[in-house]
């Protein structure tokens, strides 16, 4: 394949554009990491350069005084429970919708999918009042339950898309072998759907982990708060201690970034899969 001068020039331009945006994406994060090792004075006088000493004092401060680890633990509890329940229930529904014979399956799917355009704001005050009456406010459940409900539309959308494409023969063979529906679901469908399950799980995890609104309203006790709420709390308490705040931000984004680096294929596919099939 020969390349003309024009093509090569075009290629250079493309790479310049790509490199520029790469820099824009990564530099702020890189800058945060560097700044998290600086003192406040250094941040003012030398925002660009390396810190004079790589000090971890800011992290210690964020953990000890900012209780970042406690928030971290709460986030883990809430995100993991919400994701596990959501994945199990939505894969069951998806299976029933795509593989079982019942008249209302199409309608059920549509009811779930409509939820994708519902803004959570249209349900936050009723939820507040409901949880209030149920005595669930300020408990992990008050965040976990709505997070699960909110995650259904997207999860079911993605999984029905995948499960619809599994060949019938597998199940038919299983029925011949005398498997019941539960065995088929656990032993055959779940393993095959592993990739879409991981995708749905990871996407829900990121959504729950990053959410501010629900925990901000439903969790008032600072011992139960999640990281995003903890960060805003921290911003209020130490609004001039920038470097500690930066350290806290780094601790917050690490899990998402690590999960992303490990599973970026699933995440990228998952977060767009629904859209593309729609």
């Amino acid at each position, binding site marked *: 394949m020969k390349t003309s001068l024009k093509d090569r020039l075009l290629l250079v331009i493309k790479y310049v554009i790509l490199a520029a945006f790469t820099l824009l994406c990564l530099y702020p994060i890189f800058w945060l990491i560097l700044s998290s090792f600086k003192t406040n004075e250094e941040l003012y006088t030398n925002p660009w350069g390396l810190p004079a000493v790589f000090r971890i004092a800011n992290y210690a401060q964020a953990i000890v*005084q900012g209780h970042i680890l406690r928030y971290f633990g709460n986030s883990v509890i809430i995100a993991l429970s919400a994701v596990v329940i959501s994945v199990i229930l939505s894969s069951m529904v998806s299976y029933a919708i795509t593989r079982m014979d019942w008249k209302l399956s199409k309608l059920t799917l549509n009811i779930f999918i409509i939820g994708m355009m519902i803004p959570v704001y249209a349900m936050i005050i009723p939820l*507040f009042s409901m949880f209030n009456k149920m005595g669930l406010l300020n408990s992990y459940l008050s965040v976990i339950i709505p997070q699960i409900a909110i995650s259904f539309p997207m999860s079911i959308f993605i999984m029905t898309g995948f499960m619809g494409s599994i060949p019938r023969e597998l199940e038919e063979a299983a029925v011949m072998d005398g498997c019941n529906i539960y065995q088929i679901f656990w032993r055959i469908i779940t393993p095959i759907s592993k990739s879409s399950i991981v995708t749905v799980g990871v996407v829900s995890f990121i959504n729950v982990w990053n959410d501010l609104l629900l925990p901000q*309203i439903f969790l*008032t006790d600072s011992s139960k708060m999640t990281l995003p709420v903890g960060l*805003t*709390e921290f911003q*209020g*308490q130490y*609004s*001039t201690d920038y470097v500690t705040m930066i350290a806290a931000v780094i601790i917050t984004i690490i899990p998402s970034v690590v999960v992303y680096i490990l599973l970026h294929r699933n995440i990228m596919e998952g977060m767009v899969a629904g859209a593309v099939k729609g």
Partner: protein
Amino acid sequence: MKKRLAALLLCITMAAGLLAGCGKGNTGSQDTGGSGSVDAEGKKQGGELTAMCVGTESDTYLPAYKAIVDEFNKTNEYGVTVNMGFYENEQYKTKLTTLMASNAVPDIFFTWELAYLEPFVSGGKVTDITSYLEGDQEWKNSFSGGTLDLLSYDDKIYAIPTQKSLCVMFYNKKIFKDNNIAVPTTYEDFLKACDTLKTAGVIPMAMCGTDAWIPAQFVQQISNGIAGMDLYNGISEGTRKWNDAAHVEAAGELQKMVDAGYFQNGYIGMSPEESTALFTSGKAAMYFMGAWDSSKVSEALKEDGGAFILPAKNPEYNNVSVGSVDTCFAVSANCKNKDAAVAFLKFWTSQVNEEKLLYDQGRMPAGNFEIDSSKLNSLFAEVVNLSKQQKGLTPWWDRAFGAGEGVEFNNTCVAVCGGEEPQKAFDSLQQFAEDNADR
């Protein structure tokens, strides 16, 4: 409306009370810590009382607050442990509202007076503590005259103040001296001083624009100096409007100061802590704030910290300042151990603790005991002195009117800072007030 009238009355009596408080010798010590005068049958039942208060790590008085809590926990006869959490001002307001609606208010909570507490009282979320105060006249009488009225609704008392406060102009004596500026006694002098400082390359005033109440209290102070107590009373009673000429004029003055560059660059995007830091680090010469920041100022500037009252534009209204009670505490309606909670309030407002907060932290007490000026550092003494000179105090609008007009007044002032035409801005505030009546 009756309440607001009471409010303004109390302001006047309060100023008088401050004066009187210093003349009268009230030596009766009220260390209720272990006196048990609360309730003869106070049992040792232990348990925990939750409490919530406004405060951030940059508030130098926070350790003193915590010390009071610790002391109470060690000595109280109920064997209860008070567990007090501190939250930043804006977050506190959201949190308290949420907790109120969900019936999960802590046993003891920080509150502001007047309209702030009102919806919670009418919602039945706050304990009526009148009987406790009536049962202990000594305690009741220890509060400066009129202060409890600010926290009374339908003649019942729902909270107690622990402090009084008023807005003062803190200034850096060294910067003033270096630039040959005397403490201004007229409004013109004040502007001249700003001008001199500006020319000399010093930031005349540190201001914060992200918390709208900060520019707003400045506008309120200027308007007090234009129209006096009448303005506050008139608006409270509904006889004057929000777009009163005095407000428009005061906002215009603020705008002139903005245009003249009397505030630091970028003030409008700075958090309170950032702007305070400009003053306490000696980069700005003046700083208009509630007297509660005295301890922060004196800790940073030591002997260089001073304070004066912004001279009135209309000299006959000198010494009509923005001020009220401060750091009030209430007991929630679903508190399980109200006796112990009230005992905590009593302990906090005991003379010993009020003195501690006054002499160490410059927190002006709500109690009317005699102040020993010799124990005050120079700044605290100046502030106490200033408070004695006040002819009238007007509570902050956002406390008097709460989250509706009060907060919108604050936003209007920020809009004026941002260049909006004052008449127009206050016209729309008036419009808002009329529309808001039935939302």
